[in-house]
């Protein structure tokens, strides 16, 4: 992991009555795709708005690309797609990108070429000269992504970038995001689409009621516990005594069961136990937890 490009310490935002973000400490390394997830109203957008400078933190500190948040100069290297994307809809897509490039201090000579590139990237070349008010919602989101990308930022914040996109659009945006990472860029992604995050993120943090309740690399979070799914016949009550000693049986369904094991070494031991006891092993499958399972687990777990 490279050096940290996002670093927050006890970052807190209290609205009139509501604590939207509560002492959030995060560190995101360079070249990462970082997924930020949590239930509605958890504080995801508020967190991004604080980093991007829309909302002033109540307390705590944060830095982006090594400079404290609010530094205007650093913003030249930052791109942002707001959650409620809404653009100057009396402009054409092309004009909007021109203004965004100009606001990002992009040299005039390089703008036309770059604008052509990003229009192509978000598949809006054909609509470039139409007014944005004639765009569909998905097209507006695409032009928003293009506006965030036009200055080729090193750090990109996308607040639910695919909420209005069709499945192909989502896939294309995933490709855009991963290609950015391949070029060493850092992407901070707010999303509810867990399967999507699971496909592309290196690290995630789960936030609930303004607090980070789980964070780490996707690999660690999803493989931290070892779950094995077994289908076997002729177990002869093995399940009730010997196997239960291995670990927690999570689910039994006819001749299949799911068991959580203490460590990897228990997998071959379990297999040989079944076979030695005369069981007929049809399937033994090490299960990776899905992000969705983890999410539901930690978010609901906190309620109990």
């Amino acid at each position, binding site marked *: 992991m490279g050096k940290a490009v996002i670093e927050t310490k006890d970052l807190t935002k209290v609205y009139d009555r509501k604590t939207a973000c509560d002492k959030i400490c995060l560190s995101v390394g360079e070249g990462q795709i970082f997924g930020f997830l949590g239930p509605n109203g958890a504080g995801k957008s508020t967190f991004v*708005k604080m980093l991007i400078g*829309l909302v002033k933190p109540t307390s705590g500190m944060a830095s982006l690309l090594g400079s404290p948040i609010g530094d205007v100069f*650093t913003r030249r290297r930052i791109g942002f797609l707001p959650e*409620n*994307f809404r653009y100057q809809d*009396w402009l054409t897509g092309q004009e909007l990108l021109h203004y965004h490039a100009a*606001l990002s*201090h992009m040299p005039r000579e390089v703008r036309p070429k770059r604008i052509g590139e990003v229009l192509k990237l978000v598949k809006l070349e054909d609509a470039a000269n139409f007014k944005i008010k004639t765009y569909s919602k998905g097209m507006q989101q695409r032009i928003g992504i293009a506006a*965030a990308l036009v200055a080729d930022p090193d750090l990109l914040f996308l607040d639910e970038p695919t909420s209005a996109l069709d499945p192909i659009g989502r896939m294309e945006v995933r490709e855009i995001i991963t290609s950015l990472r391949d070029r060493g860029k850092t992407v901070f992604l707010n999303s509810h689409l867990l399967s999507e995050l699971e496909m592309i993120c290196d690290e995630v943090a789960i936030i609930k009621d303004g607090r980070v309740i789980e964070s780490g690399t996707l690999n660690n979070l999803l493989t931290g516990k070892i779950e094995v799914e077994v289908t076997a016949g002729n177990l002869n009550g093995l399940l009730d005594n010997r196997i239960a000693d291995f670990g927690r049986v999570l689910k039994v369904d006819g001749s299949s069961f799911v068991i959580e094991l203490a460590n990897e070494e228990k997998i071959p031991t379990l297999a040989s136990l079944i076979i030695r006891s005369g069981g007929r092993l049809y399937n033994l499958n090490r299960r990776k937890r899905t992000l969705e399972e983890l999410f539901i687990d930690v978010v609901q777990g906190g309620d109990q």
Partner: protein
Amino acid sequence: MLIITALTFKEALRKKILIAAIVLTLLFLVVYGLGLHYIAQDMAVHKAGFMSGGGSLSAGQEQAMQEISKRAFFLLGIYFASSIVSLLAIFSSIGSVSSEMENGMLHAIVAKPIRRRDIILGKFLGYTLMLTFYSAVLFVSILLLNHYIFGSRLDGVTGAIGLFTLQPLILLAVSLAGSTRLSTLANGIIVFMLYTVGVIGGMLEQVGAMPFVNSTTLVRTGIITSLMMPVDSIYRMIVTIITGTTQNPLDAVIIGPFGAISQPSNAMMIYAVIYLIAFLVISVRVFSRRDIG
């Protein structure tokens, strides 16, 4: 900052605000010009009728009557034009920050490498250029119409252009400041009320200063409302420049509340400029500090 100015311009063009304003203004000028034309004709006819009926009017009286009538219509034109530019300033800028904040249009802009101060100043500059250009053209048109139709003298009067263009800018600064803090609707109501209070206060002041009313309370009320909203006193200053300081008692009767019997002081003009700057500073301050979204 200039990019924001350019965006503000483009918005006015694309939303056809400028076109609508220009078309309606032409309409106003045509109606006003026709009015002046027929009044000039009428005055000539009346005079002829009066003379042939055996009436006699000394050259001095005749001159005075004509002068006052012409001045009255001249001022009426300036009065309406002042109202037009004032309302245009209010309506064009009333939601310039609040509506963009409400619909999220500002989110992507504020995240750009640009200071919040420059967003406000850029918008202010954009509106200022449009309003100044517009009000200068309107003012000059009215001067020229009066010159060609009534033969009104223009020397010394052109200096009032500066003051005339200052009127909308004051309202612009107030409505911009309001829109950084208030919802568009609330801001509209407040700025419009403030403007109306200023206008009414100005009229009360003139009535109070009439020789046969002579009420210091009314004059004082007018001064207080001018402090709250100095646009009206600028109008009175323009009137003073146009009509000169000669006090004809008939003026008070005919021109009445549209005239400037009670003349604003130079200090009031300086106050108006400070007032404008103060509201601009407030806009920048409030916008720089507030949360967006």
